[in-house]
């Protein structure tokens, strides 16, 4: 497919979708959103780009193998279990780290975010894997 309108739109929509994915990921702790939806949105941006241009090009540009995304994502999930084990809490219980940042104020970093991040990357990896396997038949 070679549509100029789609190609120009894809460039901007790609950036917007990534931004939106990040928002969905970050607000997911207390509001609708989270790693799964964020991951789908982020993967969607690349898939949209691939449809507008060329799947093979996108694949070469990505450089990273989809399986690696999955592995890193799952690794982050396991990593998020470790603080709860070290603090002798029940497994997967949230552990929060408070960081003082000079101008912005207090920042709370917690294991639930690490878990969400893991889900985010896993979903991206799985969606890429689907996409590349389905578009291979040409």
């Amino acid at each position: 497919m070679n549509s100029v309108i789609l190609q120009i739109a894809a460039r901007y929509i790609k950036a917007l979708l990534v931004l939106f994915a990040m928002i969905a990921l970050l607000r997911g702790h207390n509001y609708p959103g989270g790693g799964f939806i964020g991951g789908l949105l982020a993967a969607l941006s690349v898939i949209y780009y691939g449809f507008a241009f060329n799947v093979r090009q996108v694949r070469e540009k990505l450089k990273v193998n989809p399986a690696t995304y999955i592995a890193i994502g799952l690794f982050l999930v396991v990593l998020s279990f470790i603080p709860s084990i070290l603090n002798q809490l029940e497994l997967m219980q949230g552990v929060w780290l408070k960081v003082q940042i000079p101008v912005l104020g207090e920042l709370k970093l917690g294991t639930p975010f690490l878990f969400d991040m893991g889900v985010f990357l896993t979903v991206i990896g799985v969606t890429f894997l689907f996409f590349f396997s389905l578009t291979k038949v040409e």
Partner: protein
Amino acid sequence: MTITALPILIPFVLIIILIISRSLVFSKITSIVGSFGLLILSMIIFYKVNKLGFLVLNMAGWKSPYGITLVIDFMSSLMLMVSSVIVFAIAIYAYRSLNEEKQVTKFYVFFFSLIMGVNGAFITGDVFNLYVWFEVMLISSFVLITFGKSKEQLEGGIKYLALNLLGSLFFLAGLGLLYGKTGTLNMAHLADILRNDHQAILMNTSAILFFIAFGIKAAVFPLFFWLPASYHTANITISSLFAGLLTKVGVYAFIRFFTLFFVHDQAFWHQFLLIIAGFTMIIGGMSASVHYDTRKILSYHIISQIGYMIMGLGIYTPLAIAGAIFFTIHNMIAKTNTFIVAGLIYKLKGSFYLKDVGGIIKQNPVLAILFVIPAFALAGVPPISGFFAKFILIKASIDDSHFVIAIIAVLTALLTLYSMIKIWNEAFLKKQPDNEFSGQNTSLSFLDMLPSIILGTISILMGIFAFKVFDFTMQAADQLIEGTSYINNVLNR
């Protein structure tokens, strides 16, 4: 206690390592080491359960009816241990048997995700969580069945997937009704509500939906058609894994549900389960006797043996439940072993059809011994494990004056013996017929036979120390039938 979640976490970590792995040898070694670790872990868990009675973990600190709870009781720990033994044996077997096929490294990823699903199903204390583990198992087993990408594997895999998805649908429907009526899905909380409720007969609708769901998983009488249609198509390594684990998870779920909270309306349910058990035994045994493909004979025998386990549940005395658990343990080990031996016969001769092969007893007497052990165990010849399993069940049925099912059980044992003798006569005793397979002269190394030797030894030991194993299963059965200690431990009263 974190150790409760380790049977799920260890396969999970192994999956991550195996996804990245690019080297075949590394994957194989990792899987053997990892499954050995699982075996050790399951032994530690068994020891702890022996001491404490229950291991309970409230995930993320959410207290029991609200969060997801992982519970290991006596029965779960026994099942975990046996499944780890099988996984260890299959990991060794795969080391030699999977070489030519493409993407073998991917095999190990799904191998461990299947084990994660099985272990998760054994230790979860939450009905919805059980559904999730069933799905994990279903997806990974579908990938494993269609692993060789041949046409018949795809056909078998689609039949398998379609019928099991139907089972999942029934599971989900039953689960929805259960939640609608009681407002909880925590097994202990459900038991607490349903055991003290006089309207529990209203639960029959969801109980029958669960019966269909687990019946499809466990391959009982009217719902078993997916099993013989799919098991013989998969690679023999994968078939032997499935034979040992998949249907038994269905049986486990049956025993868990129908001892813990579906305990109302016993007159109907136990009669019903006994009828189903009788038909499952007879039809499985008879269908097996007409086939000449070793894998098909063994697949039908999986079905007939499931009947014995359901029979134990149907009689519902402590002795009968203990017998059902004993039988499940014995069957998981012996069944996997027969499939492994069938794979070795194939490796030696190049065919699964009994008409094509023969004369193995002269060519490889060790393999003949390795076949005799699990075959006699399945048929129930003393002093190997199967005899005691069947003896306990038949004694329990006569004690409780269920004479018809006792007669059926004895007849099915004869049918099993007949099939095993058929394989023995055709593959081992008969002279090798003149055909394209007669030239085959592969030799088997010790490593090929090691998994079968391990499982065979366990079968024999289970026969010799039957009283010891029986003590454990009896404790498990008492714990299941009593039920209140489960409820109190999980709900922390």
